[in-house]
């Protein structure tokens, strides 16, 4: 699942692929802005066939947070 999410992440930010680790923070480490993040959430919904609630999305700070959240929806 990490590799799949990593592929999505790298479509939205100009980051070093090696930097996309579970511990990486979306804003501080990977350089996401709000728009990139919202777009990525939309693609995550499509690719993983889940529905992300906005109140949950804003609590996701790291790649690991996102993986745990997606797993909890599946």
């Amino acid at each position, binding site marked *: 699942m990490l590799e799949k999410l990593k592929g999505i992440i790298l479509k939205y*930010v*100009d*980051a*070093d*692929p090696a*930097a996309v680790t579970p511990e990486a923070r979306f804003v501080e480490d990977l*350089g996401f*802005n*709000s*728009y990139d*993040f*919202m*777009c990525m*959430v*939309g*693609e995550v*919904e*499509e690719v993983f066939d889940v529905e992300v609630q*906005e109140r949950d*999305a*804003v609590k996701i700070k790291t790649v690991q947070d996102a993986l745990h959240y997606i797993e909890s929806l599946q």
Partner: protein
Amino acid sequence: MIYLCRLPDPFSDCVPGGRRLLAHAAAFGLLEAGLRAEYGLDSGRLWFERGDCGKPALAGFPDIHFNFTHCAGLAACAIAPAAVGIDAERVGPRREPVMKRAYTQEERLWIERSPDPDEAFFRLWTLKESFVKAVGEGLGYGLQRVPIVLGDGPRVSCGRKGFHFSQRILWGTHVVSVCTGPVPAGAADRTGMEEELAWNKTDG
């Protein structure tokens, strides 16, 4: 005052992450230059702190507010005597999932009926973002809670008393929006806040 500079994409694309690093450095450089020009502050003597929701602030100077933004090809910074938020985006194809999540039905209709729906999409997005950044809450505030009304003229309203917006479309490719909150009573400098901050644009 609002400070903007255009960023050279080809140069910063040489290394992974280079575009982001260059944009961040440029935005910080604009802040340093602005603080020096407006307040005579030397960046070497400044400390930065973060508010409850992570919004950066200048430690020891509660009357000086600032905010950054950067996107592909542009970095910007706003400095004001009241809460301020700034957001910039390069206009591209509008995205339907974001439309559904962030915009009210009235806003979606306004976008679709606009002569340039993609530009309209980013005009609204940056206005909403500038507001939630001004109040210091970011996306957690809920973008649908910031209904933007754009008239035929230059006036923009979000239904919140004391908040003023300003917007520029630059080079036909980028949209930049700024929101300033109510100026605290007793703030040392109220110049220009009743209408809009001045724009200081640098090419290259």
